[in-house]
């Protein structure tokens, strides 16, 4: 009886975290559209919020699996840079067909994911340090390969991936929606998601229960490597260039949107929808600050504050709920006596 009640309370809080981000996105959107008439145009939202939000949105999907399983991946930005520069180089410099370039880029992302997973699962090195190392390696290789040069003027058919639209919905956002659907299904309706939460809340227990922890972890890192490559390629297509700075800081924006979306860094649970909304919220915030003429540097400060205050508030709420539950229980016991 009590257990089901506790379960109800905790599931309420998990849902509350998701509602919180939905509420925040809604409030921010309303506030911005009151402040500026341009925000009331659908076209503006599609082009200036949803199109740029796609890149961090894609990364945040993979990051949800990683954080839910109590892992960490700091190398997403440099994987994005490496796979996009190699992929673009393949058709830009060596005249391979474009689809082959994309495939090569994606394969590099997958390979890096596998590389991370090998060190994390086979050698039991902390994900934090492994992915710092691959961050450095990936960024270095990108610099070596691109020779510190910017590449401009990519072929139109490739650029359409980034700048095109279907029925005025931006192509990158459509891709993100598709990936969102896939991730949502994997996270909520297959073992991949359930086991991520199981591994995140207690890895030893998950192992004892017969979950092949290493195999699942490997999948999560490969998945985020794949998504990073896609994000990098979409960025290149949209920006019409390959730059050595591609993807710098993506890892933190992705982690921030996942945390904003209510996934705990302590592992054990997560929300794909929340992460997706978190990425959109970051972009709304970016636009809002530009609109108000506030320096975009302050965007970082605000995101930091939202993360800390949001989590502290959630923790405080949780504490109060536990206290009142305990009080009720004591009263019940006393009245029974």
């Amino acid at each position: 009886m009590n257990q089901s009640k506790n379960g109800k309370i905790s599931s309420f809080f998990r849902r509350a975290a998701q509602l919180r981000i939905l509420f925040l996105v809604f409030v921010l959107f309303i506030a911005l559209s009151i402040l500026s008439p341009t925000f009331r145009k659908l076209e503006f939202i599609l082009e200036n919020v949803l199109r740029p939000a796609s890149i961090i949105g894609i990364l945040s999907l993979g990051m949800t699996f990683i954080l839910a399983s109590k892992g960490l991946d700091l190398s997403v930005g440099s994987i994005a840079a490496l796979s996009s520069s190699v992929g673009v180089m393949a058709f830009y410099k060596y005249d391979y067909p474009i689809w082959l370039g994309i495939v090569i880029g994606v394969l590099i992302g997958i390979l890096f994911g596998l590389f991370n997973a090998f060190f994390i699962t086979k050698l039991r090195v902390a994900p934090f340090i492994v992915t710092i190392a691959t961050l450095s390696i990936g960024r270095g290789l990108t610099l070596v390969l691109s020779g510190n040069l910017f590449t401009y003027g990519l072929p139109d058919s490739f650029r359409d991936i980034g700048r095109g639209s279907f029925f005025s919905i931006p192509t990158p956002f459509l891709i993100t929606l598709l990936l969102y659907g896939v991730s949502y299904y994997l996270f909520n309706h297959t073992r991949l998601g359930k086991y991520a939460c199981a591994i995140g809340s207690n890895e030893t227990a998950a192992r004892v229960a017969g979950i092949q922890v290493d195999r699942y972890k490997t999948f999560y890192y490969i998945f985020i490597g794949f998504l990073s490559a896609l994000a990098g390629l979409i960025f290149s297509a949209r920006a019409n260039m390959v730059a050595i700075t591609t993807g710098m800081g993506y890892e933190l924006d992705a982690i921030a949107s996942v945390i904003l979306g209510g996934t705990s860094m302590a592992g054990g649970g997560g929300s794909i929808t929340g992460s997706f909304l978190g990425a959109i919220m970051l972009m709304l915030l970016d636009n809002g600050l530009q609109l108000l003429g506030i320096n975009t540097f302050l965007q970082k400060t605000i995101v930091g504050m939202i993360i800390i205050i949001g989590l502290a508030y959630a923790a405080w709420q949780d504490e109060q709920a536990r206290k009142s539950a305990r009080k009720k229980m004591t009263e019940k016991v006393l009245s029974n006596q």
Partner: protein
Amino acid sequence: MKSKKINKFREFAGNNGMILVLIVLMGFMSLLSDKFLSTSNLVNLAIQNCTVAVVAMGISFVLISGGIDLSLGSIVGMVAILTCGLTEYNGWQEWQSILFSLILALGVGALNGWIITRFKIEPVVVTLGTWYIVQGLVQNYILSRVPTAPPFTSFLGSESVFGIPVIVIVTVLLILAAHLILKRTVLGQWAYAMGSNPAAARLSGVPVNKARIIFFMLSAFYGFACALLMTGRIHAVDASAGSGLVFLAPAAAVVGGTSLFGGRGRALNAVIGALIMGVIANGLNLTRVSFFWQQVAVGAAILIAVTIDALQRRRD
């Protein structure tokens, strides 16, 4: 008898494996370039790696006590930018801006510790948040200006006393102080106890929450020191100051042999880790390998170091 000796050797190698790696690495680099072992290059090497050693030392307090501090790089940036910026643009005296940034740095450290202990949130997230807050505010202050280092800071970073660079003296003193704190004071005992088993530490009377706040403040203090040395050495700062140290600091500490999982680490490890990273960069520099490959090499070095560490732990 013999097996005892072998065991002792194993224990020594286990504790000091990274020193051996450093020696091998230096031997290898001296084969690659005959300039490597020249006095001027070795002095250079020492000066270049002081700042990383200090900041790695700072983060070691947090790592040993079972936490992580991502905001340290932004604290370094903040101190560097405020010390130079306030003096140059806002008409403050140098000691005023140094004192002000010291108070702010300790404040950020205390805030980190307080939020983590009061609300029981993961250190990674809290310090990610404070990193963002601090960096955003500081960049908003400095914009694209590039202030130069005031006199005392310059003295710390690039002058010599009796032929020994001040930066090296300060670093040695800081590392020595850290060593004494870790090995000779109750604070050090708390750090190891908390890092190996927080619940047991709490039960045996360690004031875990207070101690965590102190370790974050110590970490911030070392960040402050690193910032002064860094600005003094390179004479000017811009908005990106300290951003390279965010990941480099924990990486150097871990390469030196400090555990990311808490409970294990020494002051010396921070120095060794910083030197290993420094020797790779310096050696490759002398052999004219491009900076780009150096980044790859540093990443590979981290992987090799942690792999050795992991294999060793498994054997134990």
